């Protein structure tokens, strides 16, 4: 390794044009020599020479297609078993397979080849490849790459790539033997600024450093740890928010129906499931008949899911729930029965297996924000939840239906006396709540399995949200959903997913003791329910 390095440094010190051609010739000589040590040096020399033939020759060497003749000339074997001259790339028709021997490799040479190819990519025209190469060098942190890095840095214009190259350089520098203490300290600073798990791992693996550098590395590790902890916290909040918005979507409709009608709809989860299956059906239909619209499948599914689930809701209210007003516990049982029927119906139609719902291209992937990984689909779900919430609030606040709904929530008999047709309000409220659940189903189809049991897995959580937040108040529901989501995600790393959930449930049961009607209880006569 040291010899390789000195060779590289030596080569780099003579970097005028004519010397370069000379270097390349020397490199070819070394490659053809037959000694592993020399071949290794030759690889590094070839890269440093900047010869345009470096990439094809080293690739051929890696593939075992580089051959040397007895007079130390190099040839590359083509796929059709003919040979070309390694130094020029010109065809060499008079070379026979019997006259040449392949250049042999051992592990040391293979390592040099990997490093060399990585270094070569540092000069690739595509910045993405350069970035990848820089990261590869960082992972390998082989001091042999330092000269190449230095050259690449001199010409690099892309700031991101440059930053990564500097980090790679810092890492390589720290493991090299002859860097000055000042350089080392600066390198630790660069890595500390990088501040991710890789940088931490690298710093903690350092050994044999001067005492000042070792101390600097130790403080850098603590600082990185603190940063990572903060980012981890932020990541938990993000996960919590995304779980919370899912819960909010699932629970918002429940809160409305519960608030207005005092009815617990155990089939609410099945409305969510219906929404998810609408998404599946829309995707299937688009795929078969209108492939051009396929990327917009979710946009089409959202209103459709609202309509279908809402319609089911209205039908359920008219045919079932309205006969049970004043008997909330019986309603609970009847809607539970309904949920069994709906589940089995979906199972009969679509089968018991999970159905695949695609995530459109514009929703997949993730973006990196500092130490945060923000997946797009969760991002969109958070946005969607905000939109749905805003639309619901606007509907309750500014439409005449919303006004009537609020009136019925506050005092049903007074509202009826004022001429509001409460049965219609009930039906529409139930439809609205179910429709919102349907839209939640579209969102859930993106992050969960679409199966007949989809709704069941969310119904208890949705109830918890409603119980926690109080009924008839969307702000309470929002706060309840987000709190539960975030608490859940914070407990998960500490206690594990299952235990975390148990703790949340127990906390909720205890919370109910203090506030039997949720965080934002209804006041007045309605509170007597």
């Amino acid at each position, binding site marked *: 390794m040291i010899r390789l390095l000195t060779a590289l440094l030596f080569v780099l010190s003579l970097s005028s044009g004519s010397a370069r051609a000379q270097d390349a010739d020397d490199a070819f000589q070394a490659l053809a020599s037959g000694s592993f040590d020399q071949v290794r040096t030759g690889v590094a020399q070839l890269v440093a020479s900047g010869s345009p033939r470096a990439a094809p020759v080293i690739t051929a060497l890696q593939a075992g297609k580089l051959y040397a003749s007895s007079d130390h000339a190099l040839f590359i074997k083509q796929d059709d078993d003919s040979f070309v001259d390694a130094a020029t790339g010109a065809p060499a028709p008079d070379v026979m397979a019997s006259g040449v021997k392949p250049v042999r490799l051992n592990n040391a040479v293979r390592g040099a080849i990997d490093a060399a190819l990585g270094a070569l990519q540092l000069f690739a025209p595509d910045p993405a490849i350069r970035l990848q190469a820089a990261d590869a060098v960082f992972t390998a942190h082989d001091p042999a790459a330092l000269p190449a890095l230095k050259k690449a840095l001199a010409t690099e214009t892309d700031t991101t790539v440059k930053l990564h190259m500097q980090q790679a350089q810092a890492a390589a520098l720290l493991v090299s033997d002859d860097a000055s203490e000042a350089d080392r300290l600066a390198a630790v600073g660069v890595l500390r600024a990088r501040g991710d798990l890789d940088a931490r791992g690298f710093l903690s693996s350092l050994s044999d450093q001067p005492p000042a550098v070792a101390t600097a590395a130790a403080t850098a590790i603590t600082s990185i740890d603190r940063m990572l902890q903060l980012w981890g916290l932020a990541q938990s909040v993000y996960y919590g928010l995304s779980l919370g918005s899912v819960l909010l979507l699932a629970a918002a409709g429940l809160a409305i129906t*519960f608030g207005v*009608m*005092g009815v*617990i709809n*155990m089939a609410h989860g099945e409305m969510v499931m219906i929404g998810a299956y609408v998404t599946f059906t829309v995707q299937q239909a688009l795929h078969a008949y209108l492939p051009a619209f396929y990327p917009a499948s979710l946009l089409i599914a959202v209103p459709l899911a609202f309509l279908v689930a809402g319609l089911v809701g209205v039908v359920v209210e008219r045919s*079932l729930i309205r*006969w*049970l*007003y*004043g*008997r*909330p*516990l*019986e*309603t*609970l*049982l*009847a809607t*539970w*029965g*309904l*949920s*069994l*029927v*709906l*589940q*089995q*119906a979906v*199972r*009969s139609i679509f089968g018991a297996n999970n159905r695949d719902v695609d995530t459109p291209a514009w929703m997949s992937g993730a973006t990196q924000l500092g130490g945060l990984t923000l997946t797009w689909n969760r991002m969109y779900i958070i946005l969607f939840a905000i939109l749905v919430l805003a639309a619901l609030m606007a509907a309750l606040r500014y439409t005449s239906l919303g006004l009537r709904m609020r009136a019925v929530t506050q005092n*049903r*008999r007074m509202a009826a006396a004022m001429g509001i047709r409460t049965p219609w309000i009930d039906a529409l409220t139930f439809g609205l709540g179910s429709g919102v659940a349907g839209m939640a189903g579209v969102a859930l189809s993106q992050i969960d399995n679409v199966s007949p049991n989809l709704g069941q897995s969310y119904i*208890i959580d949705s*109830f*918890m949200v409603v*119980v926690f937040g109080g009924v008839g108040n969307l702000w309470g529901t929002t706060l309840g959903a987000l709190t539960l989501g975030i608490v859940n995600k914070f407990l998960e790393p500490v206690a594990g997913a*299952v*235990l975390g*959930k*148990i703790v949340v*449930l*127990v906390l*909720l*049961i*205890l919370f*109910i*003791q*203090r506030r*039997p*009607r949720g965080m934002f209880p209804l006041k007045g*006569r*309605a509170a*007597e*329910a």
Partner: protein
Amino acid sequence: MKLDRTAWLTLILVMGAALALAILNQATPPGSAAHVPTYVIALAGKYLCFAMLALAVDLVWGFAGILSLGHAAFFALGGYAMGMYLMRQIGTRGVYGNANLPDFMVFLGWHDLPWYWYGFSWFPFAVLMVVLVPGLLALVFGWLAFRSRVTGVYLSIITQALTYALLLAFFRNDMGFGGNNGMTDFKDILGFSVQADSTRSGLLVISALFLCAQFLMARYVVTSRFGKVLIAVRDTENRTRFLGYRPESYKLVVWVLSAVMAGIGGALYVPQVGIINPSEFAPGNSIEAVIWVAVGGRGTLAGAIIGALVVNFGKTWFTGAFPEVWLYALGFLFIFVTLFLPKGIMGLFARRQRRPAEIEPEVTPAAREVTG
């Protein structure tokens, strides 16, 4: 306490049927026309245990207005206590032959018996736990809930949360209750092999005895002065409170009693079905128990027993004959009973017989007032 005709009929039918099945199983040779196969005995025993659960639900729902959607949790806890005793009885006959640890603990690489398993090899201790564990959980939960006046659907939902939390907890291997697989492969109970026909017949008769005893006790409770207050609490809790009673104390007593009844049902259930696992805690199970009561007739006690037997017989038959249809049937049963048969099967007879209305359920005026 004077027993009316329904009560006598219930006692005679339950005891008579159990005894007849047991005798036909034991006294006739296999293959004869009168012989009752052992699987029928096990099935009947299972139904009787479910009837105990239904009775427990009816006691709190029908007479105190507490719709518990988590009663199967008490049932399962009683079952687990009995299961732990049965596990200890396996001794060295397990797959790993470890005298000190149940198989699943050996499998998990544990070396010592957790402290909460101590004593379960002793039958009286296990029996004590069958009563104490569900009872104490109900006491703590009920005390917290009733004291802060959590009622109606809120209470129903947190009972769901309770059983759901227990379901998740018992699924964990670290809990030391067998995790996902639960406990099974039992060998004997009090020295009798659980697989033997005679043991199964004996367990059936014992289940019938316990069911009758629970029925009598529940009847005694609801016909006593205490029961009258309970019904008052069910119908208008606030009015009862203003009359100077403490509804929460009355509810707590009947709640704990009911939990213990369910626990005993669970304890008898486990040796007869030969397995206990966390799925007994599934929220749906508790809701199904409520529908048994609704089918039989809420607030009639005898109806709860009839409902449990009828629905479970239907379930066995349907899942055997048309497995696809069972969920439809159960779902429509829920809807049909709540819509058209609010007093259940007992309501059909009551109309003809004009029984005294003292323990008839009725729609609570309080609820009607609020939403009406």
